[in-house]
């Protein structure tokens, strides 16, 4: 049977504990990025530590959708691009209050405390850690 991303996968979005989620996410990242298992720690940043780029984010989203049987709007998991391109959200290389509010809303799965102290857009990439993905999947699966 043909599988088409737009109609959704028939596999079940069963709930799993964080440990299982972490392992699956780890496997996805190892395959998508060509890194080793031991590089994929919870604190590892996708861009800085693991070398992920734009096309990789899409690859990761597709693989996570298949692995967990859920739909993942790319904007939900990796909202950076729309934020960085909007002049309302950026001022002098930092996110404005409006930008920060937007970010908080888009990625509730990520702890922003440290970032808010110095919302440098070059550091936006540091928010996207393996742990953040695990949080996101955890929330998504339990909401289902």
């Amino acid at each position, binding site marked *: 049977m*043909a599988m*088409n*991303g737009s109609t959704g996968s028939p596999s079940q979005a069963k709930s799993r504990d964080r440990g299982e989620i972490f392992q699956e996410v780890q496997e996805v990242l190892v395959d998508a990025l060509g890194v080793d298992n031991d590089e994929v720690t919870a604190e590892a940043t996708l861009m800085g530590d693991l070398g992920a780029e*734009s*096309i*990789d984010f*899409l690859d990761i989203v597709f693989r996570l*959708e298949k692995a967990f049987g859920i739909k993942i709007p790319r904007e939900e998991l990796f909202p950076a691009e729309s934020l960085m391109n909007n002049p309302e959200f950026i001022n002098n290389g930092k996110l404005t209050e409006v930008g920060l509010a937007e970010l908080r809303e888009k990625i509730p799965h990520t702890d922003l405390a440290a970032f808010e102290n110095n919302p440098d857009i070059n550091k936006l990439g540091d928010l996207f850690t393996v742990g953040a993905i695990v949080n996101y999947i955890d929330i998504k699966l339990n909401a289902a």
Partner: protein
Amino acid sequence: MLSNGVDTSQNGAFAEMRWIWIDKFVEFHSGESAVAVKNVTLTEEHLHDHFPGFPVMPETLMIEAMAQTSGILVGEANRFKEKVILAKVKKCVFFDYVKPGDTLKLYAKIESLAPEAASTSGKITCGEKLIAEIDLMFSHIDQNLAGKEFPKENFVFTDTFKSLLRDLPFDDGSSGALESGQD
């Protein structure tokens, strides 16, 4: 129609086809999967360099053949409105080499499809032999690569490529897939 003077419209196309690595589609299930064939022949000039004395089809050209098979499948899923280009070879594995006289069958399947990108899986066989497995990712470039300028017309899906589909019966009885979405 094209600013560099190369006429790739319809019948004149065959004289200009230097970068087509499949010969025709034999199956096409819109938005899902497709099968194309490629004949490998000694008249293909590049074979003589790879290698001089024992010509075999370069693996990278097999990847290109699969990219064209999969790329057309992905492009057609959006009526060729997007410029779809190869962004990443996720994985490719080659089990055997291919010689002049061989006919390859390329099987491509869409695994994921989104507005900005698509992911495909595929395999190449020669008779009973599995030659390669090739998984690719395509980017719809107008939706990505912000800041880079591209010519407006769809330079990826020229009439030459679309002509590879012309004799196929479509699942739904229509030939609507050949209608270009480009202006």
